[in-house]
């Protein structure tokens, strides 16, 4: 009897716990989420913009043929439910989702898909106005490697490619290639960018420049409907002011924290720190056409002189890991067996002596003026690198200028050593390794024939196992040649109120907010 009562008691307690957990975790519908970020969007037509703040909004309005999974860059069905490819890898056929309508009531079908692709890929298309940079860089020009797009029937689209292209599917999932309502594009013409119409879980409501963009739940959404009633994106330029707003409670989530503010967020009981998976790299590079960077021993010396772990530990605020390769370890194809050049000033001096520069040399180190997601405080990092280099006899003078000038001058090759980085687009190693090493690199002028051959080959085959092998080999080749010094991969931080639930940070740097809900206080 006693033991029975005991069991009953235990069961009751467990039930009570279960109920309370269940209650705490059941998503609540409704409410408005205010998202604070550093700048306003440039435009809400994702095909013709390049800034992250535009995609942050458009990925909630539009959907692409394919999507990334919520927690990775693996491919999942989007507006296309199934796809098949021919043996040659040249023909791709997509079966579209049925019963989907755009926010303006236009039916979604093969014709709409063809309209969008033709608008992106053909400079002669009447609605191809503006700079379609992402199409150009991901698909290789106009039309690029897509030869044609045809509607086979109402819900089947067929692509014919010029050559087999491994990253094709990953590209289609990018938020830049969200399918827009042809009716709306035709109706609004040049002003379409401020009247966006897609099929996504949120629809556009209002945009007041530099102030706010308002989206509301799409009640007709074909899938699981968004939990929030509304999302408001607010531009709050100054980082500290944005954090103050979050602490004061007038915004719910904030983009971009400086490393110095991370402890503040961690110690605030009302706030949570959200880290995006890393898909970027910040690096130190040099113009190999300038002396003495053409010499392998000099490059080795620099690689051994920079105390990477210390820099990452002290200046990245706990949101970075030291980088060995240009490819982030979160991506497939990463070669974890590549050994990094360890910090060793003695070795660095030996290599300098071997290069005929026992007393070091004088040079410049260019640093960008503003933080980038892959490098939170570039000038401080530059000072640390400067000190490390000085310790082995390399006198580097730090040069900095505004971002526009920095981008322009480094392209001209005016710099000796410089810092920059890259944020991945589509989760494919091609997007890192071919971009930098498939041809002569723009700023560093670096070219490695072997690496170029490996990355080009990997781009043209579909077998992922074989591609992995090629990328792993390329990373070995590049490390042996000390192509550059990758500094860090960061996990870009966000801060949110504790009441914000269901926020799934994504490696691409932006999220769809339909799973987000607000806990009632």
């Amino acid at each position: 009897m006693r033991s029975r009562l005991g069991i009953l008691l235990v069961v009751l307690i467990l039930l009570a716990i279960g109920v309370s957990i269940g209650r705490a975790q059941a998503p609540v519908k409704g409410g408005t989420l205010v998202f604070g970020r550093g700048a306003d969007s440039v435009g809400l037509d994702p095909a013709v913009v390049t800034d992250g703040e535009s995609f942050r909004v458009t990925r909630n309005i539009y959907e692409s043929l394919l999507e990334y999974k919520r927690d990775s860059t693996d491919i999942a069905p989007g507006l296309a439910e199934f796809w098949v490819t021919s043996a040659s890898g040249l023909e791709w056929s997509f079966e579209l989702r049925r019963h989907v309508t755009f926010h303006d009531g236009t039916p979604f079908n093969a014709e709409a898909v063809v309209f969008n692709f033709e608008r992106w890929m053909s400079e002669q298309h009447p609605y191809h106005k503006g700079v379609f940079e992402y199409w150009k860089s991901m698909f290789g020009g106009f039309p690029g490697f897509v030869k044609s797009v045809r509607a086979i029937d109402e819900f089947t689209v067929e692509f014919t490619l010029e050559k087999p292209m491994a990253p094709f599917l990953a590209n289609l999932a990018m938020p830049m290639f969200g399918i827009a309502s042809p009716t709306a594009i035709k109706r609004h013409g040049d002003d379409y960018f401020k009247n966006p119409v897609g099929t996504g879980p949120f629809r556009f409501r209002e945009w007041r420049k530099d102030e706010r963009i308002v989206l509301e739940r799409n009640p007709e959404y074909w899938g699981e409907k968004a939990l929030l009633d509304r999302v408001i994106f607010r531009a709050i330029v100054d980082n500290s002011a944005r954090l103050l707003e979050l602490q004061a409670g007038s915004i719910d989530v904030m983009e971009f924290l400086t490393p110095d503010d991370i402890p503040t967020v961690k110690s605030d009981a009302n706030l949570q720190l959200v880290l995006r998976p890393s898909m970027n790299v910040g690096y130190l590079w040099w113009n190999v056409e300038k002396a003495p960077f053409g010499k392998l021993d000099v490059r080795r010396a620099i690689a051994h002189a920079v105390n990477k772990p210390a820099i990452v530990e002290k200046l990245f605020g706990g949101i970075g890991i030291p980088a060995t390769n240009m490819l982030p370890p979160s991506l497939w194809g990463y070669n974890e067996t590549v050994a990094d050049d360890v910090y060793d000033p003695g070795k660095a001096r030996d290599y300098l002596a071997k290069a005929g520069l026992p007393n070091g040399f004088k040079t410049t180190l260019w640093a960008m003026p503003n933080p980038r997601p892959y490098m939170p405080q570039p000038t401080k990092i530059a000072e640390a690198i400067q000190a490390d280099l000085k310790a082995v006899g390399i006198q580097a003078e730090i040069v900095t200028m505004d971002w526009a000038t920095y981008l322009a001058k480094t392209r001209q090759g005016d710099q000796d050593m410089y810092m920059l980085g890259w944020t991945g687009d589509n989760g494919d190693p091609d997007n890192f390794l071919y971009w930098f090493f498939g041809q002569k690199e723009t700023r560093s002028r670096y070219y490695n024939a072997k690496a170029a051959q490996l990355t080009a080959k990997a781009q043209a085959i579909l077998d992922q196992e074989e591609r992995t092998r090629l990328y792993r080999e390329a990373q070995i080749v590049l490390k042996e040649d000390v192509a550059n010094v990758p500094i860090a991969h960061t996990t870009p931080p966000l801060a949110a109120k504790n009441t914000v639930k269901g926020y799934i940070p994504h490696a691409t740097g932006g999220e769809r907010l339909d799973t987000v809900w607000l806990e009632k206080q």
Partner: protein
Amino acid sequence: MLQYVIRRTLMLLYVLLGVSLTIFLLMRLIPGDPALVMLGERATAEGIADARRSLGLEQPLAVQYLIYVKHILTGNLGRSLHTHTRVAEELWARFPATIELSLAAICLAGGVGVLAGIMSATRHYSLLDTGFMMLSLAGVSMPIFWLGLVLIWTFALLLGWFPPSGRLDVRIVLDPLTGFYILDSLLTRHWQAFWNALWHLTLPAVTLATVPLAIIARMTRSSLLEVLHQEYILTARSKGLHEWRVVTRHAIRNALIPILTIGGLQFGMLLGGAILTETIFSWPGLGRLLYNAVLSRDYPLVQGGTLLIAATFAVINLAVDLLYMLVNPKIRYE
């Protein structure tokens, strides 16, 4: 007087032409390429060439300038390189916010500044005078950026009396009739929005008013002191007039001319120079727009914005000149 106004307006056209040419050349002389900023890290040589072509930047400079002037004369300021929005539309979306903030700041600076100046001058070398002047020295030399953050931290975060930034609570819906939120809320009798807008305006206006307030206070003090030493003031005093009446009736009128001049100049500067304040308080105004436009080398937007500011500045100066007449009937314009 009408003739004078017309003459000044015609002169304005020359000024604007000069401004347009200067800014046109300056923007193109500084390094950096709008196409490159747009494409950032991912720019390729072809990408830049394409972008430059579609932005119309590959034509010779002279041709670009002529096209630009031709467009201005037909009332077309072009489209922003960055957002492809019409420049006029971009400017108009921000101008009311800047005017609203600048007006609030200049009213605050003028009112408090003149009052503080009068009190200082009439109690020359007193503790009050020294205190005011030290405060005004602090005001002139205070870094605006720092002051703004301190105000936000104290009054928004610590005390919670004011909102940290923005123009209006994002959850409040207000029909933008004129773009001046205070005016819009009054017109639509939306009292919640009215108080909320006023509440949002306070901290940025105080921040922005600091420097002009200090300058106006110092100017009022020195100008009034000079007048107070003149003989007609002695006469007034010997008539047995109360000191307050001497100052408000006789002295301040003559002291007002330099104050008006400096006030007008300060107002003009506020319109174009509120960049820092607008940035800290995320005020969606002209200063912030232009600052970003310069950084992204958005030529048409910078040109249009500069023209607008130059024109406003000139109009304010004209207004100040006409105000002289009101203050001092001896001044007449032919």
